């Protein structure tokens, strides 16, 4: 099913997932409570500090705000920065797929 990797040196092309699904590095994952999250509560684009601070760019600037857990490294910066404390870091089974 898989084609052969005939590279003799380490190369990759810029593409989503080229470095593997880095979301499996994490031990904790962020969970958003829509009852507290400002854009969800107000029903209009606002706050988005989680989107702004996320070092991996995996938070969407949408209503509701979503987080791509395939690539979230679980750093917890979003939870730390969220003004109404709508984001909680919860434990996740460790290990790669």
């Amino acid at each position, binding site marked *: 099913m*898989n084609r052969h*990797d005939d*590279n*003799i*040196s*380490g*190369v990759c092309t810029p*593409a989503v*997932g080229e470095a*593997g699904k880095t979301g499996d590095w994490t031990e904790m994952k962020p969970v958003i409570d829509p009852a507290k999250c400002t854009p969800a509560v107000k029903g209009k684009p606002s706050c988005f500090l989680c989107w702004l601070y996320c070092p991996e760019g995996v938070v969407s600037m949408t209503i509701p705000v979503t987080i791509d857990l395939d690539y979230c490294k679980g750093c917890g910066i979003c939870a730390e920065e969220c003004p109404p404390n709508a984001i909680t870091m919860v434990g996740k089974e460790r290990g790669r797929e």
Partner: protein
Amino acid sequence: MSDVRIITGNEAAALAVTLCEPQVVAAYPITPQTKISELLSEYVERGTLKAEYVRVESEHSALSVLIAASTTGVRTFTATSSNGLLYMHEQLHWAAGSRLPIVMCCVNRGVAAPWSIFNDQQDSMSQRDTGWIQLYCRNNQEIIDTVIQAYRIAEEVYVPVMVCYDGFILSHTMMPVEIPDAAEVRRYLPPYKPHTFLEPERPRTINPVFFPWRRQNADGVLCDGYMEMRRKLQKGLEKARDVIAVASSDYAERFGRDHGGLFWTHRVEDADIILTGMGSIAAEATLAADLLRNEGVRAGVVGIRSYRPFPPGLPAVLRNARLIVVFEKCFSYGYEGGVTSDLKASLYGTGVDAPVIDVIAGLGGRDVKTADLLGAVREAMKSLESGDRACRTVWLNCREEE
């Protein structure tokens, strides 16, 4: 008409590089290599070598420049010696791991401390496991011819090649050298075709982090992991065994000079006393063997030209040996000379059980005369005749510690 000039080893190397037409040269001066980089900068200035000559602030930078240049798909060259080579150490691994066919001359010099500018082979031999091919030359003609062969070998197996020759003994000594015809060199050495290279139209990351496991890329191809990539490097060096031999025989056909592939021999057909070594000391050993022949001793020489890949064919040549004497200008501290270890290992289980006497000679430029080599062989023969079959290490012309 052949073009024969009386030149030093360094000039032979610089002329060979010019004939191979690299597009990027970067080097930092260090004795006894300096003359190569001086000559190349002169050739670039004069326009006889159409290359970008990058002035760098260190050897680490010199090889970094070549790694970058080679990654864009051009032919490259550098030269260094001793501590300069050691300063490149990390980049040696990067170049080999990236499978970049960089060619470098290592003008062999002892390594500090204590400080020395004189010849031995500790510098290149201590870089054994970096994944570079290492070829050792015994005279200036072999230097010019080996540098040209080095490009062909490197670009065929995508492994960088270090062309090593003894500092001062060859680098600064003048000998008649036949300069190969430029058009014939072009026919012998096809244009460099990179296996992969960076270009703006196809953005790529070279050498991203590799994980212990294999993983799928975005196209669904199961990509090799670190261990597979390292194994591919070993496969490259294994392939190089044949490629070096063919590069050498094809060169002999075109230019009329055969320096041997992985190794060369001198009067070994019926020899039972075998002298061996790498570089100029092995050439010196041929004189010792000839003198022994005059006395009726069946002596011969096996010169190791390729240290890595190590020649697999030695046991066949050594099968009739009663005694093997290795002359080497390097030491693996805490054990023995590096060539001796490799040679003994290659003989294991082959039925060759001749004692191997490891003679450490000429460290830090200490003079080694034919008579000294002769004396060491006679000493080893005396031990053998008295029934002593032990392998041992001897430091030649070195005061014994009391």
